[in-house]
C-alpha cells in the first residue's frame, strides 16, 4: 500500500526524470571525455590486438611454421593455410590468408574499397610484420612478465 502511494507520487512529480536531468546538467559544465579522433588518440595497451601480422626472427626467417593450429582454432574459419616443404626441407606455408575479421597488431585503422581485398595474403601479412616489428617486439617484451 505504502509502495503504491510512493510510486504514484514519484511519477506524478516526474522525480526520476529530474534526477536524470541533474546528471546531464552536471556534465554540461565539466571537461568532455570525447577525443577528437583521428586528431587525438586514446592511449593503447601493449596487449591491444589490431591488424594481423606475420613476424620474422631477427635473422629474417619467417616464424610461421605452418602448424595450422591457428587455422584449426579460429572459430570464424577466417584462416586458410597451405603448406609444403621449402627447398631447404623446412616446413613452411605456401599460402597463408586471413579473411580480416579480427585484428592482432596495434593497428586498428584500415579499410577496403573492394570486395575480396579483405583477404590478406602471406606477403601482405609479412610486410605488416616487417613494418611494425620493433613495436611488436617491444610490446611482447613489456608483456612477457604476464605470460
Amino acid at each position, binding site marked *: 500500500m505504502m509502495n503504491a502511494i510512493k510510486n504514484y507520487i514519484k511519477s506524478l512529480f516526474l522525480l526520476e526524470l529530474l534526477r536524470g536531468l541533474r546528471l546531464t546538467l552536471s556534465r554540461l559544465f565539466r571537461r568532455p571525455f570525447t577525443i577528437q579522433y583521428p586528431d587525438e588518440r586514446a592511449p593503447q595497451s601493449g596487449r591491444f590486438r589490431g591488424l594481423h601480422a606475420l613476424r620474422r626472427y631477427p635473422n629474417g626467417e619467417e616464424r610461421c*611454421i605452418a*602448424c*595450422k593450429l591457428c587455422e*584449426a582454432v579460429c572459430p570464424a574459419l577466417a584462416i586458410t593455410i597451405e*603448406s*609444403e616443404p621449402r627447398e631447404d626441407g623446412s*616446413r*613452411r606455408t605456401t599460402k597463408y590468408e586471413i579473411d580480416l575479421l579480427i585484428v592482432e597488431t596495434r593497428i586498428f585503422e584500415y579499410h577496403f574499397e573492394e570486395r575480396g581485398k579483405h583477404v590478406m595474403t602471406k606477403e601482405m601479412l609479412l610486410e605488416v610484420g616487417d613494418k611494425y616489428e620493433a613495436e611488436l617486439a617491444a610490446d611482447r617484451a613489456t608483456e612477457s612478465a604476464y605470460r
Partner: protein
Amino acid sequence: MSDSSTPEMVTIEVDGQELQGPAGAMLIELTDKACIDIPRFCYHDKLTIAANCRMCLVEVEKVPKPLPACATPIMEGMKVFTKSDKARMAQKGTMEFLLVNHPLDCPICDQGGECELQDLALGYGRDISRFSENKRVVADKDIGPLVATDMTRCIHCTRCVRFSEEIAGIRELGATGRGENTEIGIYIEGSMQSELSGNIIDLCPVGALTSKPFRFTARAWELVQQPSIAPHDSVGSNILVHARGSQIMRVVPDRNESINEVWISDRDRFSYEGIGSDDRLTTPRIKTNGVWHDVEWQVALQAVADGLRTTSADQLAAITSPTSTLEELYLAQKLMRALGSSNIDHRLRLGDVRDQDSAPAFPGLGCSIADLESLDAALVIGSNIRKDQPILAHRLRKASNAGAELHFINPVDFDFVFSVANRLIIGPAGMVGATAAVAAALLEANGKSVPADIRNLCTASEVDQGAKAIAGSLQQAPRSMVFLGAIAESHPDYSVLRSLACTIASECGGQCGYLPQSANSVGACLAGAQPHRGVGASTVSDSGRGLAALVEGGMSGCVLLGVEPEADCDDPAHVIAALEDCGFVVSMHAFTTETLEQVADVMLPIAAFGETSGTFVNAEGTWQSFSGVVPPRGDARPAWKVLRVLGNVLDVEGFEYESSEQVRDELHRACEGVGTDTSQHGNCYTTALDVGLMRVADVPIYSTDALVRRSPALQKTGDAASFLARISHAQAAQLGLSDGESVSVVQGDARQVCTVVTDTRVPESTVWLSCGTAKAAMLGASIGPVSLEKGSGEGML
C-alpha cells in the same frame, strides 16, 4: 601349427572384470578385446612382441613389480589392475623417460594430431619437464623417396625393424648402439627395397617415419576419410582415402583380415599422386584437321555418336582397360553389343588366345586370399609375384614360414622375400618344357602313362631333376596349388601352359589358379568385356574379334576406355599402328598422352581413381564397391555416366540408369551361378615358340597402369622401369658383349639402342628387357625372338 586340440581357457580378472582367454595369450590381447585401454607403443598385433617400450606396465596381484601387459601371458586366477596407483605411476614414469629425449617439435611434425605419443602424453605426461639436460639429436637417414625420417623423434619401439624383418621379409632397418645411443637406421644407405615399405609410416607411433609425398601438406584434422578399394593389383586392398576439399591428400590402409589384413603395397598407397598429373584431361576435345579443340560435352558426345553410327558394326571395336570399374566395362560392352559389335576386349597383355573358349569363366585365384597362407606347396609359373601382387606374396611368405614349399618356373630368377624350394629358371620356350616335365613327372609318380603330347613338350632335359623334385613336393602336400602369373599370361604358349598347369593341379589333387594383373581383370570377364563371351562369361553366338585379331586390321571405329596403347598393351607398336589405320578413334580416359593425341579423334575426359563410384572384383572373386571421394577434375565425368549418356544419344535401349549401383545390381543378377572352377583348359599342347634368343619382359611394378606411371614418388624408387637389356654372363661372353655396352636390340622390324647389363638372374638364350619405357614399347611383344647387334649395328650376333 597343426595342433588340433583347442587350448585350455583361462579366467583372469582385470579391474574387477572377469575375462577369459586361451592359455598362453598375452594380457594385452584380452584387454584389447574387452576394450580395456592399456597404453602401448611397441606392441602391434601383427608383429612379434618386443616389450621394449614399457608403456603397458600394469599391476598384477602378488607380483611386487608392475608387469608389461604385452609380454605377460595370462594365468588362471590372475588379478590385474590397469588403473591402480601403482600401474599409473609406472606408466607415468615410463612416459617421462620417453619424453626425455623426444623433441618438442609437434607443431612442425606431420604426425601431430594423429600421434600415439602425443595422445598418450596428454594422459600420462607431466605438464612441465623436469629434464634440464641436453636432448639427444640423431641424424636423419635417407631411406628413399617414399618415407621421410626424423630420427630424433624415434622412441625405439622397433616396430619398423620388426616389420621389415617379419612382414616385408627384408632386413633393411635395424637398431645400432645401446641405451641412449640407440639409433634406428637402414643398413644400406639409399632407398628401401621393400614394396610394402610405406606401412612403416602407419606403424611408427611417433613422427620419426612419415610419408614423404604427403610431407607438410596437410594436418590430420583437416582430412575427410572415406573407404575405397585400391585400383591396382587384383587384391582389392581396402583403403581409406583422405581428402581435403576436392583433393586427395593421401591413402592409408583399412583393416580387412580376409584381404589385405592391415597392410597395403606402396603402389596402392602412393599412386594417388598421379590423379593431379599435368597431363590430366579436363575438357572434352575434338581433333579437326590435326588440331585439337576443347568443346562442350554435348558437341563431343554427338561427334562420338555420329562416328560410331557411321562405322559398320563388324568394323567397330572397343578396347577397354582391366582397371576400369565393373560398371564401366559392363556399359561399354552393352553399348557395343547393342550396336551389333562383339569386338570388345580387355585382355591387353594376353599372349595367346588359342584356347580362350575353354578357359575358365574368370581367371580367379582358385582359392581365397587368406587360404594362400595355409597351402603346403605351390607351383608358380611365370610370375614376379612379389612385385605383381605384393599382398599375395606376403600371404605366400606366411605359408612359406609355416613350412610350405614354394616352387617357381620363371624366365628370370626374380628376388623373392620367402624361401623358394625349387626354381626352374629357363627361357620362355623352356618354360613350357619345364612345366611339361613337372606334369610328366607327376603323371609318372602317380603311375600313369604320360601322353605323347606332353612327352613331346619335355624338351629341356636340364630341368628334369628339378621337375621331379617339384612333382614330388606337390604330390605329397595335402594342400597344393598351381598358379599362372603375368609372364605366363603374356606368353605365346599361354594355352599350353594353362593345360599343363591344370594337368599338374589335377594330378596333385590341387587347383589351378591365376594371378590376375589388374584391379578388375576378373570383373572384366564377368562384365562381358571379351569378344567370345558375354555378361557373366556366358557363351555368345556371335563371337567377335579380340585385341590380337583387331590389330591385324579390319577396324575402322574404336572406343578406347582407359587405355594408353603405348603402355597398357603387350605389343604396343602394333596396337598403335592399327589405331592409326582406324578411321575413328574415341579415347575415354582421365589423361592424355602423345600417342592418344596422335591416334584419337575425340577425347572424353573421365573421372580418375577416387572420383567415381564403382566396383572391382578381386582375384578371389569378391565384389567390392566404393564411392567417389572427391569430384572429378574440371569437366571430367565418371565414365559410367558418360557411357550411359552415350547410350541415350545413340538411342540404345536399357540405358536409363540413375546410379552406378543400379548398373552393378543388374550385372550382379546376371552373374548369379557363374562357375568358379578355375581348372578348365583346352588340352592345347602344341607350342608356338621357336628356340633361339628370346626377349622376355615383365611389367615393372610402377608401370602397370596410368595412375602409377604418373606418381612422381613411385617413379623415383628403384623399382621404376628402366630400359636395359639384361643377359647372363655366359650369353654376354658368347655374343662378345660386355657390361654397360650399347647394343641395338632388334625385335621384328623394330630396333632400339639399349645398354647391356649382365645379370646372374637371367638364364641362357634370354634377354630380359622390361616393359614400361617408351623405347621398350616400340619393340614389340613382351615375349618374342630378339637379336642383339653391337653398337654400330653391323653384323648380326
